[in-house]
């Protein structure tokens, strides 16, 4: 049985497609890495944390926009004083799996309809008439809202922060998102397992 399997694998590797693909891969990898090593400038450095690079790029983007941002530590201070409502811009499923304790769901997909309903002082109902308890139930002008999504790269929280800011609500964006919140020791309300 074992022999048969090894013969099968041998035959597979022997096939023209796979042997040629390996040849192309080997040549490309050797040339690619050599070219990168020999480049006087402009090569990709191996010792750079690329996730920090893109995080910095994102921060500078916010600095030039009209969205106010808040660090995780400052957001935690607001949370301890119960002075802010967190707006979770992720999906309903993600929200149900776990979210910041004092958070309400504000999905960007229905943000306009939700904002319209709340601005009229009504609760949002889905097209089939259901009221979801996870969704934000009311909006007040004096209240501070902190929008977040999963992490530094998602843009959902940015969209709702932009929309609510333009509508005149005190909204801050927490760019580090839930990842940053958890990394700083923040609590999360997780789904109850039955």
């Amino acid at each position: 049985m074992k022999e048969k399997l090894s013969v099968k694998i041998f035959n597979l590797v022997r096939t023209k497609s796979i042997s040629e693909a390996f040849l192309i891969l080997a040549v490309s990898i050797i040339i690619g890495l050599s070219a990168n090593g020999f480049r006087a400038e402009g090569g990709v450095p191996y010792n750079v944390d690329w996730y920090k690079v893109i995080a910095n790029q994102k921060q500078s983007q916010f600095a030039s926009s009209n969205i106010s941002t808040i660090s995780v530590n400052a957001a935690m201070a607001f949370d301890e004083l119960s002075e802010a409502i967190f707006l979770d811009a992720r999906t309903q499923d993600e929200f149900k799996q776990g979210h910041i304790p004092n958070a309400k769901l504000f999905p960007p997909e229905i943000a306009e309809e939700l904002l319209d309903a709340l601005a009229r002082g009504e609760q949002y109902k889905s097209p089939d008439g259901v009221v979801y308890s996870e969704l934000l139930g009311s909006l007040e002008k004096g209240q501070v809202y902190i929008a977040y999504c999963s992490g530094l790269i998602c843009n959902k929280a940015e969209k709702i922060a932009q929309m609510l800011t333009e509508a005149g609500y005190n909204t801050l964006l927490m760019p580090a998102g839930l990842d940053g919140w958890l990394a700083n020791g923040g609590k999360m309300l997780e789904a109850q397992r039955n």
Partner: protein
Amino acid sequence: MNTNMNINKKVLYRSFFQRLPRFVVGFVFILAAVGKIIDPMSFATDIAGYQLFLANLIPIMAATIPWIELFCGIALVLNLKIYGAVLLTGLMLISFCVLILYAIFAGLDINCGCFTILSSEQSQNLWLVFFRNIGLLLLTFLTYKQLTSAEAEVKK
């Protein structure tokens, strides 16, 4: 004489249209690769944007993937090591499609890293990128079918 010329024209057209899929995919891959080889730093940033890969792996990917694309593109256009090139191109396109779907559903605000040379500052429509890749994947599959049917004819 006239009939012969018509037949020759037909053969020419047929062979051109048979080659067209691999020419299209090949040139697209060469174009995509050249931009990334010129500017691997931007490509590394684009890869990091997906937030899926180990940080140590990103520079290696940025240094090698464009060369794989380039050699696959050249192989497709020049009909060299075509079986391997079709396999690699297909695998790459499938992975690109999966990555883009992931980016769409995770709500990532990223550049797909497809054409560093053409990409603008503005965010791209990732659905458009996805369907472009599906189109390229279909052309690659067409090339594969042509290769296998040509091989079957030779065996006959």
